[in-house]
């Protein structure tokens, strides 16, 4: 810890997870997970199906009580600090036929600012438009939410997270059902947000994009198996035990071949 001794006012981690266990109905889905993310980093969360990726996200935003451990956001542990983190759910967890417009969805992120018993006003819609503009979706404000493509739906939910005032985005499988150009757009938006100091944690099955587009990786399989840069993490001795039967690794003529089964996320 020499760094801290030399400079005690070093900026706190954007997200600091220490010894966290959580689960449903008495069963733990994640156990003793610890990792720390610096502000503005883009971290991929990878692991086999049922590794507890969504559980970890839910624990971070306070949807699940922690059985053990603690989570600090920008150095604070309070419930108010948790609001700095926003969860962007998987596509299949949202009812896209619900009668709300794109702008309505983003305004929902401002609900606490609007306050109890009140309806959103012009200033809230204006803030929502600003958030939509940040993800390049301002032109779609009046569309019904189900009329958008997969990538556009993602961007709207990111806009909602920004409207919430979140500095930490937790994106659950944002690339599922999203075509390549839209993926590219999403990464562009994440680049812009990173430059503004937004930290992003992205759960994904797409290991190809992980290697190219992320600063750091967290390998999760009930426990945190590894945390580091892609070079540090993409090693057979780390991935093989983490993915179990879902990955096969060959070492043929200096060339490492990894096969993964991405079925059924």
């Amino acid at each position: 810890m020499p760094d801290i001794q030399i400079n005690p006012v070093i900026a706190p981690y954007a997200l600091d997870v220490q010894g966290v266990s959580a689960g449903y109905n008495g069963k733990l889905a994640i156990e003793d997970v610890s990792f720390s993310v610096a502000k503005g980093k883009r971290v991929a969360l990878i692991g086999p199906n049922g590794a507890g990726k969504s559980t970890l996200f839910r624990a971070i935003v306070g949807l699940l009580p922690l059985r053990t451990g603690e989570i600090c956001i920008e150095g604070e542990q309070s419930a108010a600090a948790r609001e700095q983190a926003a969860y962007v759910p998987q596509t299949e967890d949202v009812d896209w036929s619900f009668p709300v417009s794109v702008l309505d969805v983003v305004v929902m992120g401002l609900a606490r600012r609007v306050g109890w018993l009140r309806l959103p006003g012009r200033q809230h819609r204006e803030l929502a438009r600003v958030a939509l503009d940040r993800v390049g979706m301002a032109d779609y404000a009046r569309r019904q939410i189900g009329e958008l493509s997969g990538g556009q739906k993602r961007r709207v939910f990111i806009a909602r997270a920004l409207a919430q005032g979140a500095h930490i985005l937790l994106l659950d499988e944002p690339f599922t059902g999203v075509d390549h150009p839209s993926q590219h757009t999403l990464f562009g938006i994440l680049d812009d947000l990173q430059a503004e100091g937004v930290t992003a944690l992205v759960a994904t099955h797409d290991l190809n994009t992980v290697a190219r587009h992320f600063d750091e990786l967290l390998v999760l399989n009930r426990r945190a198996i590894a945390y580091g840069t892609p070079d540090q993490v993409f090693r057979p001795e780390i991935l093989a035990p983490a993915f179990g039967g879902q990955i096969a690794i060959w070492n043929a003529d200096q060339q490492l071949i990894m096969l993964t089964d991405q079925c059924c996320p």
Partner: protein
Amino acid sequence: MTQVCAEGTVLFEWLCRPFSYAFMQRAALMALMLGIVAGVVGAFVVVRGMAFFADALSHAVVPGVAVAYLSGGVHGPLALGAMLAGVGAALLIGFFTRGGRIREDTAIGIVLTASVALGLAILSAARKGSGGLEELLLGNILGIQDGDLRLLLVVGGLLLVTVRLFYKELVITSFDPVLGSTLRYPVEGFRYLLLIMLAATAVLAIQFVGAILITAMLVTPAATAYLLTKRMSRLMLVSAAICAGSSVFGLWIAYHLRLPTSAAIVLTMTALFILAYLFAPGRGIVWNTIHARSAHAD
């Protein structure tokens, strides 16, 4: 109205005569108020996929009304009995399904049928004949008292105020309960609030259309509005307008065709739903077919 409906003209006989009777005026007033309330509450029923739940609650009020009926005939505390039974059933269904122990549709099926059976058993054990039961299940606009209208005005008004006050929270917890939780809203609390509002609406409607057809007032106009609108606020307004409009129209046509009023009202609502299903801009199947064909021709 006075000019158009000058007494003695053909138009008067056809259009206004039905509403010149005191009982029809009371029924029309009830149709309007009830239509607005059921249309608004029904909007949430439809977007949350709670139609089966609504059906269960409207049947669940039967044993409560039966007990109240026995304690004092038509002047018994019918509304109180219905309210208690309805809220009790809502809580019971919520209790059975808590923690995913039993699937919701299973719990609903059990509570729904048990309620009607219990009402049936209570009424026949008391040997009061089937008159009371028939009224319960099918409604009876002839029995509407001024007190019923006052109750509707107060409870219905309360329901509308509740929707207005918690509109934002109700929509958020319906659309995205996960966001609701992260905003630290009592998501389960709002679900129970909706169930209680549903039970209250069922109680108000039981005299008008009867327990069997209450679901139609809650579901059919809102489903029609769902096909015609893209935003929740608009959906609620259109649903209320359709529900109130078809209730009054159903009343009127029932008078002319000598149909049971509840049947005429529900069939009117169903006809509007079918029209919307076929012709709704952008969604109706006929509209889509024609549009696809003309796009193909281009």
